[in-house]
């Protein structure tokens, strides 16, 4: 037996099997071979093999590695912002063991060659599992459908023009219809650009005070409404990316009540901070959709609590330092999210919004199911993608110490409680305590 290990005495959370209790997990050759609550196998195993490794997880949570279905790895084309190598290692640092990377690279991932490139690069250099998302339209231009079938065959798990909304209604309709062939979700970046044009933060009294052109909530809500109606019309699988507004949450809730086939996502920054983070023209708080108001933060939290919002993704969007050192309206949008995501999400548990089980659902199990991958579970036989998490460990966010090339975070200097301390992925153990 090669490469065996036992995670002992941890608090195992695995909503896929309804497990929430103390137990051991035995891993061999990167696969989970056995999970037992109250096991004594450790000592026996130790006798059999001197290489056998035991991780004492007493007082720690043992959860499936996170599945982040909305990330930007920037490669190919923007390697100065991030590479597959740095991005996936940063993900692992954040307890994330699978990522779905958006197609807005250069060239755009709108054909199987680019998909193949990403997958090969991820195989060679990636620390975590990488699942590409293909573009809905060629060049993300919103004009012609991209070859979804070919990309699906190559390994794309979903389609999205993220960053660029599909403005044309008929094209969105066709995408939702056509994608049914492959039973893959269409991930919609909901933004009516005629309403958001020129804006660089949430529209309201604060945007007036800062003299920044605003992006009204309506620009998101209008598009969420349109896409829900199109999903209803076509029966396609719609996944709404990065929900930031109270209005979107309400529209999605109503649609789900009607039984429309949609899922929805939000990101840690939308349930943690408000537009106030922009004060002082902090370009690290510039993100699209923009940070909203306290009312929206509360609505997003409520949406997470009542199941309206199915998943939490990072929308990890690293940028080079110099790109953020610009005029606010000229700086690119985006937050480097991998290395704070789990800690920020754990605040939901600390605040009583979600139980640990529900959090694992939203960060691992549900996203895996939405993109149809066999992840986010600790079932026997599945890959040993595990995040061992210390709920009480406090630390200070120091972007300079990020593994990600993107140091752009509005959480610089924040004191957070709870973090992954050991990540197991693709047969490797990453112990972040040392």
């Amino acid at each position, binding site marked *: 037996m090669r490469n065996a290990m036992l995670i002992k005495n941890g608090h195992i959370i695995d909503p896929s099997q309804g497990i929430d209790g103390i137990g051991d997990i035995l891993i061999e050759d990167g696969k989970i071979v056995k999970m037992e609550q109250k096991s004594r196998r450790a000592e026996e195993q130790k006798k059999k093999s001197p290489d056998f490794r035991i991780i004492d997880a007493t007082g720690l949570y043992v959860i499936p590695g996170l599945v982040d279905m909305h990330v930007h790895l920037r490669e190919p084309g923007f390697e100065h912002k991030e590479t597959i190598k740095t991005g996936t290692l940063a993900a692992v640092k954040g307890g994330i063991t699978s990522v779905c990377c958006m197609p807005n690279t250069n060239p755009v991932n709108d054909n199987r060659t680019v998909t193949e490139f990403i997958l090969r690069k991820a195989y060679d250099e990636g620390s975590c599992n990488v699942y590409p998302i293909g573009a809905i339209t060629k060049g993300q231009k919103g004009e012609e459908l991209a070859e979804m079938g070919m990309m699906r065959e190559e390994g794309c798990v979903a389609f999205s023009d993220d960053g660029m909304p599909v403005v044309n209604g008929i094209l969105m309709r066709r995408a939702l219809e056509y994608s049914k062939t492959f039973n893959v979700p269409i991930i919609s970046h909901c933004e009516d650009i005629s309403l958001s044009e020129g804006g660089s933060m949430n*529209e*309201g*009294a604060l*945007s*007036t*005070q*800062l*003299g*920044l*052109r605003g992006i009204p909530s309506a620009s998101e809500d209008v598009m969420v409404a349109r896409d829900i109606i199109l999903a209803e019309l076509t029966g396609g699988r719609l996944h709404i990316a990065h929900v930031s507004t109270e209005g979107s949450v309400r529209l999605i809730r109503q649609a789900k009540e009607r039984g429309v086939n949609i899922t929805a996502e939000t990101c840690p920054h939308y349930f943690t901070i408000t537009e106030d983070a922009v004060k*002082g*023209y902090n370009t690290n708080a510039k993100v699209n959709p923009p940070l909203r108001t306290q009312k929206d933060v509360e609505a997003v939290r409520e949406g997470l609590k009542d199941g309206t919002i199915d998943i939490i993704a990072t929308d990890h969007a690293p940028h080079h330092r*110099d790109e953020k*050192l*610009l*005029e*606010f*309206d*000229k700086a690119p949008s985006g937050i480097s999210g991998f290395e704070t995501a789990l800690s920020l999400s754990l605040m939901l548990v600390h605040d009583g919004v979600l139980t640990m089980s529900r959090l694992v659902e939203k960060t691992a199990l549900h996203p895996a199911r939405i993109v149809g991958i066999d992840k986010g579970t600790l079932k026997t036989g599945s890959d040993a993608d595990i995040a061992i998490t210390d709920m009480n460990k406090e630390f200070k966010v120091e972007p300079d110490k990020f593994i990600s090339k993107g140091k752009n975070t509005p959480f610089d200097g924040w004191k957070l409680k709870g973090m992954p301390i050991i990540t197991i992925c693709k047969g490797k153990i990453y112990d972040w305590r040392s």
Partner: protein
Amino acid sequence: MKDLVGIKELGRDDIERILDTAASFKDVLKRDIKKVPALRGKTVVNLFFEPSTRTKTSFELAEKRISTDVLNFSVPTSSVVKGESLLDTVRTIEAYGVDFIVIRHSSSGVPHFIARNVKASVINAGDGINEHPTQALLDAFSIVEKKGGLSGLKVAIVGDITHSRVAKSNVYLLSKFGAHIRLVGPPTLIPDMSGYDVEVFYNMEDGLKDVDVIMMLRIQMERQVKGFFPSTEEYSKNWGLDEQRLKLADKNAIVMHPGPMNRGIEISSDVADSAQSIILDQVTNGIAVRMAVMYLLGGAKGNA
């Protein structure tokens, strides 16, 4: 205080000090020798990333009359067009050893960004649609000169409030001094100013009733293209200031305009040239106020 980035960032006492000091500089401007050696040896760079004639001229004259050495950074021939980042441009300029950077930029927040990154005193000469603090200061100075104070005055600001940094700075300043502020204009051009004690009027006649001060704003023709109003004719008909409408204000009301005026559009010639207009006083006072601001900031400290 190192910089003047906005009125929002100033306290009432800061503003009072600037206005008091400006009065002394206004005396200087009345003399035969309109120059003082106060900032001799200091260097100012006027960094205008947006075309400006009036503000730039006013600053330049103020700079000369307070004895600074003046450097004009002209944008068309600059490296900005060569793709140099703003920060690099500004750091290069600072390396020349300048004490003051007077900056105008089309992006809001640029003076704040620059001020954080340089030792020189940064003076905002207008940033995007955010603020134009020296204009509000000279407006306040001009009002005080005519009305004796600001508290309790009814001030109507008329026009495109949304895109006017002059209007914004004036609201911030006047509200610190207890003036009653009315914003008058089409609903498409009045932003969310909750948090400030302002009354909004879409109807010009209602908005002007009994006011002590009327501040007209320049209407930008390109707003029409963007659909904020259908035509300049219609705008003028609804929100232009003419003699008839001026009569609705207090009989001693003063009329202001930051310039340049669109005569016959937002303001009629007879009003612009009337005894109630203090538009030219504003221009004169601008120099004194800008001298006062520079004098009080003093420039970079310890700059060899």
